[in-house]
């Protein structure tokens, strides 16, 4: 497997696959600066003017909704995911092993199943009206596992005796949390929260089943693509969305690495695969 020829052909193949992965992202980034409102390749004139138009368009309302939904869903996921992780990592009880499996279901099952299930339950059975809160319920459901995975991994690598030591030294529950638990968990929470936010910010399929008339940013993009309207504005929004989803993930990677939790390559992969289990559905 290590002959020169096979090395070179593997390197060339890898380069081609990476080009395949990145060229569409580069193309869409370039279109954001296309002066023309006709979507043709190659781009002949460049301009920033569509950024201004996009800022003044109805995409801004969609952005606000996306940010609100992302914040509330991430907040709920942080609280619920951390509680579940603490229970699973620190206690033994019946059915403990199946908790991880249960929590990953909303992401592991095809998006239309999660969307359709929530749609039937929320609207048909409970008779709720579609609102920002029904979108939040959907997003929080699949965001919990991101926080859970990060926190469980962190708790498994830290000793429970730290907490007992803190109590023996006379700290009350809040002090133990503030000075012992929080420093241990903070980077895992930040990383899990960033991933959860990135996932919520990008989600389309489940959202189309749980939203009514209100549009999150991805729904706004989808509607406008389907109607073939304001393509230059879509380009700018697309560029913006890629930037906004990529930055939290890059930060999350960095936070996990700098915390010294990931020391060897193998551990890094486990972490990344845990994070990647979590598709941007």
């Amino acid at each position, binding site marked *: 497997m290590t002959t020169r020829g096979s090395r070179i052909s593997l390197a060339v193949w890898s380069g081609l696959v990476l080009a395949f992965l990145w060229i569409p*992202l580069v193309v869409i980034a370039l279109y954001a600066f296309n002066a023309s409102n006709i*979507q043709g390749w190659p781009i002949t004139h460049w301009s920033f003017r569509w950024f201004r138009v996009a800022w003044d368009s109805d995409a801004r309302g969609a952005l606000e909704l996306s940010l609100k939904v992302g914040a509330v869903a991430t907040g709920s996921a942080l609280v619920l995911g951390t509680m579940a992780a603490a229970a*699973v990592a620190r206690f033994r009880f019946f059915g403990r092993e199946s908790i991880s499996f249960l*929590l990953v279901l909303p992401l592991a099952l*095809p998006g239309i199943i999660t969307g359709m299930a*929530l749609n039937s339950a929320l609207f048909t059975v409970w008779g709720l009206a579609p609102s920002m809160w029904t979108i939040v319920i959907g997003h929080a459901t699949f965001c919990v596992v991101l926080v859970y995975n990060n926190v469980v991994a962190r708790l498994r690598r830290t000793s429970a005796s730290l907490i*007992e030591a803190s109590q023996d030294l006379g700290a009350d529950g809040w002090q133990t949390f503030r000075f012992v638990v929080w420093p241990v968990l903070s980077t895992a929470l930040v990383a899990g929260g960033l991933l959860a936010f990135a996932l919520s910010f990008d989600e*389309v399929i489940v959202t189309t089943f749980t939203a009514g008339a209100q549009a999150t940013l991805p729904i706004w993009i989808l509607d406008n693509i389907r109607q073939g309207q304001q393509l230059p504005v879509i380009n700018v929004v697309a560029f913006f*969305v890629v930037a906004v989803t990529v930055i939290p993930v890059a930060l999350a990677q960095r936070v996990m690495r700098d915390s010294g939790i990931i020391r060897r390559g*193998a551990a890094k992969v486990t972490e990344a695969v845990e994070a990647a289990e979590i598709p941007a559905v």
Partner: protein
Amino acid sequence: MAADAGALEAGPPIRRARLRLSGFLWRHPWLKALGLLSPPLAAFLILYIGSLAVLLISSFWTANAFTAAIEHTWTLANYRLIFSTAQPYLHIAGLTLEMAAAVTLTDAILAFPLAFFMARLAGRRTTAMLFVMVLLPLWSSYLVRIYAWQTILAHDGAINWALNGLGLPDQNLAYTNTAMWIVFSYVWLPFMVLPVYAALERIPDSYIEASEDLGARGSRTFRSVILPLALPGLVAGSIFTFALTLGDYITPLLVGGTSSTLIGNVVYENVASNTPLAAAFATIPLLIMGVYLLIARRLGAFEAL
């Protein structure tokens, strides 16, 4: 607990109460576990598992053809409709399965050499860089990546520009099943690369040396040592590529043509007008994934995650 007792007598009342509470919880760990676990578990069971149950149940109801109001009478009518050969549904399910299989195979072929290069040939720094280069497209907006392909495949898009540059004629790829296959393979590719990389990275060098010491050539080592050990990673990756294709309706909607209707499109189109039929059709990918996950577990895919 000695310090605890001393602290109980000193300090303001609030602190004493807090100490008493944390001491109480420490002596009754099951209470703490219950308190930690019940809110998330209750929320999850009610909201999600409850919803899945509702999905199954409502697939046995019907919708009034005129008012779309749901009639709560038990019937197999939806399933009879789906499995009737006079209807397009079986054909659509077949096309969806074929597409999922084709995409999974394509991604395996594209991903394996890259994962192999990352795991066994590249240096540490290169591997770290390649890793980020695979991870970022995975996380960047999936909708935007589909949209990017819509513009690339369009008649005056980048593909035809490149083909003309090479002196080749235009291809009408936009809005075809081929376009759908390309875009599906593209958006799910990172989900295949990462688990295969993880599996390949875990193979100890000594296994490969042992195989070479025993006189195996490169191709034999690959067939008898590397491939079997990478298999759980490939299966793990295929769970994603397969499930995600089964559950998607955006890609066919944006880059597919008139004959590119998948299970997801039918579910989405019927969700308002005939919810029970949509629910019944959504249980098909649920069943398929159930079987797929059982097979994957036997092949050791869950250990590879």
